[in-house]
């Protein structure tokens, strides 16, 4: 009997690009493994929590999947994960890492292969200490946005010349950019995922304010860089991976992904690829039907991560390096190259509260 893996991800609507990257990488990894005993059930959540819940129920009760994965967004993860793990189904996160699931509410069935939401921001906060004393920070006014700025502030030692929460889905940032210009900041840190980030970066570049910008990888990754264009050149951003990361697994991944899909992979693709390979490694050691053994096999993280060294912390969130990348032009293509390592073997701040 094949192993069934349920992949719930966003394949339609405005946020589809991320989900498609995650799905594509996952499928490619399974295909490359040559493991014929894996059956994927892929469904589109359209970025709606209720729909994601419905699909999860269907996968658990109808398809009787052994493992679940694929969700991109924190709010969808919060809707799906607690109920999934409560039904003793193992869930592996390819992207979202809300703090609520990393601390006291961590769960033996929940593995986060991507990051805890604060991680990238913490990395950038640490790195910013090197050059900047006075930073203006902004993020959307929702939990992930607050986590982001909390993460940044956790390691940043300089002063804050402004802290602004923007509206979710906001598309015009003239008012915020004017505030930045007037604030006397020496740098700007922003977390604005998706179209918000594209709009902000374009408008920021057009405004000619010129104060250096930093952000997490989300606004400077392969899915959005073509849309931001040259405005992004030279911006420092933090991530756990970069296409130029110097290890065998990563090189093979980038090459395989490009060959298959004719585009560069994003961080989402990399995390998803790792998730697939983690599952494959555990499958080779234990049967999914034996939950305890399988969980132990997952926890061992005995696979070749594209991110280099990869281990799980007690709360089953990654211990990994956080890199600082810079947007560069490789021929015609905008991409990133690593310029520094902000943290080696970084752990998240919530693990201590986890009782596992």
């Amino acid at each position, binding site marked *: 009997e094949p192993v069934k893996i349920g992949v719930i991800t966003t394949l*339609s*609507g*405005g946020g*589809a*690009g991320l989900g*498609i990257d995650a799905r594509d990488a996952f499928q490619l990894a399974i295909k490359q493994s040559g493991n014929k005993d894996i059956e994927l059930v892929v469904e589109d959540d359209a970025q709606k929590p209720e729909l994601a819940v419905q699909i999860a129920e269907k996968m658990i009760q109808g398809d009787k999947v052994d493992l679940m994965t694929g969700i991109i967004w924190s709010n969808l993860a919060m809707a799906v994960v607690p109920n999934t793990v409560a039904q003793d189904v193992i869930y592996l996160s390819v992207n979202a890492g809300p703090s609520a699931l990393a601390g006291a509410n961590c769960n033996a069935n929940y593995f986060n292969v991507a990051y805890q939401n604060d991680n990238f921001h913490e990395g950038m906060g640490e790195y910013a200490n090197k050059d900047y004393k006075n930073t203006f920070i902004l993020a959307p*006014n929702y939990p992930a946005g*607050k986590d982001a700025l909390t993460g940044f502030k956790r390691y940043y030692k300089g002063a804050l010349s402004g*802290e*602004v*929460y*923007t*509206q*979710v*889905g906001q*598309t*015009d940032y*003239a*008012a*915020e950019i*004017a*505030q930045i210009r*007037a604030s006397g900041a020496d740098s700007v840190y922003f977390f604005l995922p*998706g*179209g*918000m*980030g*594209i*709009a902000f970066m*374009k*408008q920021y570049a*057009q*405004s*000619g304010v010129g104060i250096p910008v930093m952000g997490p990888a989300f606004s400077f990754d392969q*899915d*959005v860089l*073509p*849309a*931001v*264009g040259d*405005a992004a050149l030279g911006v420092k951003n933090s991530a756990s991976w970069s296409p130029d990361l110097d290890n065998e697994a990563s090189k093979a991944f980038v090459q395989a992904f490009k060959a298959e899909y004719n585009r560069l992979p994003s961080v989402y693709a990399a995390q998803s690829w790792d998730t697939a390979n983690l599952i494959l490694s555990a499958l080779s050691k234990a049967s999914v039907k034996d939950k305890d053994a399988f969980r132990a096999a997952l926890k061992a993280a005995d696979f070749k991560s594209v991110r280099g060294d990869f281990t799980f912390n007690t709360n089953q969130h990654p211990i990994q390096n956080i890199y600082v990348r810079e947007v560069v032009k490789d021929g015609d293509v905008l991409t990133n190259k690593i310029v520094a390592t902000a943290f080696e073997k970084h752990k998240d701040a919530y693990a201590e509260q986890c009782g596992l």
Partner: protein
Amino acid sequence: MFTALLIEQLLNGLQLGVMLFLMAAGLTLIFGVMGLINLAHGSLYMIGAFACAVVASATGSFWLGLIASLVAAAGVGALIEVAVIRRLYDRDHLDQVLATFALILILSEGARWLFGSFPLYLDIPKLLQGAVPLPGGGQYQLYRLAIIAVGIVVAVGLYLLIARTRLGMRIRAGESDREMIAALGVDISTLYTVVFALGAALAGLAGALVGALQSVQVGMGEPVLILAFVVIVIGGIGSIKGALVGAVIVGVVDTMGRFLLPSLLALTMPAAQATTIGAALASMLIYVVMALILAFRPSGLFAAQS
């Protein structure tokens, strides 16, 4: 220092308002004049932005892209009118809501089918890059000034079209009694196709112009749609002047709210709390304003009908 910022923010509010007006103009035309609730207006806006981005990146010319956005949006608009909208004029608003809701799904997914799932690149044209000095020492982006200018031209043009031309009179006449205007010899269905295409073209134009500032992606029309409805309802349906005033009110209130509320609240509570609560209140603000205006003027500020 603070005064200069305040002035710049006021300008930003005004500019956001004009931008909103540009989005709302086509909607007012269709919605106010033809009495049709067109939820798919945001999709036409998206089509304009996509057409502009695709053509601009293929030809390297923003201006060709702008023309393409007009043509594409008007073309799709005319097609939709003939195939779908035409059957909805004498239906109630509910049927219009459902049909145009369906159109959103079709157009959004259709666009994703054609153009892929990733956002497209579209930048402002060379000609309009840079900033112009403002009296008092500040600077303002040329492109945004250009948008203000286009918005004003559209407002004046539309106002004259509807209020002064025979075409405008016939459109308004048809709104209240399609049968009668037909019985007086006017081919109302062709007229409406033209008007719908015109409204669509305006949406497309807005999409292209605003797309250069924002992200060109599937679903970009939705937040705009709601705001555009807010704008025309505040102004009073069917009134171009109302739409302009409504847009400026929304633009200024929103900008000033985002800017001032957190600092105002900081006077009464800890800063950390003030920023988040201020932001929360700011995002609700335009809806509060709209509810207040409608509570006191149930048919908007410049209602055409009393």
